[in-house]
């Protein structure tokens, strides 16, 4: 399994280096702006902050595209032989792909979070006014009895939900692609059918999520924050697991490379 994951990353080495390089550049640019900050020339600092924020989204978008297009291309090309000839079960193979995407997604989220936190700290250090601004903001919010911590917790739980949802969607796309290459392989409509299935499943997922209980509208503490996102997170997790298992089963029984 580890070898399979290794080669999943190796395949994407170029793209990952470019994305990482881009992030590094923007980060350096931001830091440059911070340390050469002059109050009169305020333009580039906010710009670099925007760049970084947009780039964070771009990263996830890229991971999604990578995971999905890689798998799709692979099942249609001869390089799939390389993987499927190895003494691994189809389940191991699809698990390794999902795990690689998971690692990549989580690693990216962690890196971005660390960068965000340190960037904000840098902002405070380099520009004392900013810190006092943040303090003032905090003070205002607290006096209005808006809990700052809860906002942060809310943001964190939103991030976690996003991640789990993101992975669940990836697994649904994997399923559509797998269906197209296996069960539907002899059908002329396989492209349309797999896209239709994807849309149907995503829609279904949305409906089910709406029906899920909302435990705490406004969480008071960390525990409540976690509990409030738990049903949705679990649901997405279950979707992901089911999709991947079905992919494995389909590949095991019906693959035709």
């Amino acid at each position, binding site marked *: 399994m580890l070898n399979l994951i290794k*080669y999943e990353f190796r395949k994407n080495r170029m793209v990952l280096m470019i994305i990482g390089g881009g992030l590094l550049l923007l980060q350096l640019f931001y830091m440059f702006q911070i340390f050469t900050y002059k109050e009169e020339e305020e333009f580039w600092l906010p710009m670099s902050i925007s760049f970084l924020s947009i780039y964070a989204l771009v990263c996830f978008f890229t991971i999604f595209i990578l995971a999905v297009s890689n798998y799709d291309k692979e099942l249609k090309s001869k390089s799939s*032989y390389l993987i499927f000839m190895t*003494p691994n079960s189809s389940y191991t193979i699809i698990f390794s792909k999902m795990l690689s995407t998971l690692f990549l997604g989580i690693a990216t989220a962690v890196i971005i979070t660390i960068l965000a936190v340190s960037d904000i700290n840098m902002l405070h250090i380099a520009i004392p006014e900013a810190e006092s601004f943040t303090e003032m903001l905090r003070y205002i919010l607290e006096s209005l009895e808006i809990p700052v911590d809860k906002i942060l917790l809310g943001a964190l739980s939103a991030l976690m939900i996003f991640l789990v949802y993101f992975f669940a969607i990836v697994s649904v796309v994997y399923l559509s692609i797998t269906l197209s290459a296996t069960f539907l392989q002899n059908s002329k409509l396989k492209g349309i059918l797999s896209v239709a299935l994807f849309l149907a499943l995503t829609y279904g997922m949305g409906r089910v999520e709406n029906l899920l209980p909302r435990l705490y509208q406004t969480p008071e503490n960390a525990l409540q924050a976690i509990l409030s996102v738990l049903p949705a997170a679990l649901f997405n997790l279950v979707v992901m697991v089911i999709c991947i298992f079905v992919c494995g089963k389909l590949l095991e029984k019906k693959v*035709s490379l």
Partner: protein
Amino acid sequence: MLECKNLTKSYLNKIAVDRLSLQLEPGRIYALLGPNGSGKTTFMKMVAGLVKPTTGELLYDGQPIGIYSKSRIAYMPTESYFYTYMTGVDAGKYYHDFFPDFNPDRYRQLLDTMNLDPTQKIAKMSSGMMAKLKIAVTLSRDAQLIMLDEPLNGIDIIARDKIVSTIIGSFTPEKTFILSSHLVDELEKIIDHAIFIKDGVLVMEGAAEELRMERGKSIVDLYKEIYAE
């Protein structure tokens, strides 16, 4: 060692393999003969686990195709199947990572014998070089069943001799080779057993020597007779 009963693979508008029944023994070099599209590749891919049969039974050492069979079977496809970033060295590392029976020294030796530069990118290799690389990487495994799909295609005459010698040199009584080819005359002298397939159906099979004696003609001539339009 390898057994199939009524093995069938059908696609949308074609039956690639049609109720094929065979029994292959160890210690033999089999020739799987027939023109393009006769089902040879589909059969090999089913044995390799790349294609799942539509119906019928396919057993290796009494077990269905799976992890065990894949670890003992080496398949060399007709196409180029490596990742574009790979060099010969990378291909060797890949096989080394996944197949315990891969011998890196033998691989280096084979590459050397065939005058291949291991550091060259596979994507930039000519088709002849690619063909040699595939053979090198496949025969460097100590597999029990070795299936070579058109091993001599695109290879110059001198290298063909080297490849035939390598196949002969790799042979042991415990191993089985299946060579599919339409370059029958190159293989005439080394095959034990000939299997003729036409449109996915088994047309004739038997020990090469016996077929030659019974029919009074070479396998090449038999081939021409069977597949003449």
